[in-house]
């Protein structure tokens, strides 16, 4: 009987510890405030990345591949540490691809990131 209480306590500790860990990892983002006026920035300050269907990525109108994106962004951040990146995403793009791109941006320490969904085009 004494051992069964030991088992029970072990299970309690197990559930207490695991419940605080489960599935809380992710990519934190900040959404813009709807009531505030959007900041106006000059066009040339913005780096535009367009995410299209079929894995097509355009980096400032230049077609690049997912593998090159990290290098391009690294160069960009080295040149301009607070570069603004506008991410235009076509509505049919698979969510995993979006996460991949955001992941790369986070790892290259792009601080200012803006999202927008675009129709096909």
């Amino acid at each position, binding site marked *: 009987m004494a051992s069964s209480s030991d088992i029970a306590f072990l299970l309690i500790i197990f559930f207490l510890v695991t419940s605080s860990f489960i599935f809380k990892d992710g990519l934190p983002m900040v959404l813009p405030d709807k009531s505030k006026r959007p900041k106006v920035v000059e066009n040339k300050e913005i780096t535009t990345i367009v995410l299209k269907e079929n894995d097509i990525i355009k980096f400032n109108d230049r077609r690049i591949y997912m593998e090159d994106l990290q290098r391009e962004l690294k160069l960009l951040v080295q040149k301009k540490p607070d570069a603004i990146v506008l991410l235009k995403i076509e509505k049919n*793009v698979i969510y995993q691809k979006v996460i991949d791109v955001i992941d790369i941006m986070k790892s290259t320490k792009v601080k200012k990131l803006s999202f927008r969904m675009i129709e096909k085009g």
Partner: protein
Amino acid sequence: MIRKRIRPSSAIPVSAMADIAFLLLIFFILSNVSEDTIDIKMDLPQSHISEQETQRYFNVWVDEKGDIFFGGKKGTAQELTSYARFKMASNPQTKALIRASKTIKYEHINAIFESLKEAGVHNIVLVSKKK
């Protein structure tokens, strides 16, 4: 007449302790399964960077068909806005954890962003699995 004095036993009743332990166990298991959780089969997207979240939050699920679930049931984007407003009223620092299936299209995510923005939720977390 000599009465034998009954001595209190010096042993701790261990068998009762197991009962208490099991009660606690049942309590913690049940309290873990809050009304917020839903059983949806989900394949979360994977990312290299994944930060731990400790603040107060509420969950929004998006399944493979693009259906939105929150607060323990399925709902529309408008309902999500009022639900998020209610959550923000109780704690303005509340974060929204978006758990979406990795295979869905971005437009569903965008719709959720829009309804959360409408409700004034600024802090969101795109929940992902670590690669």
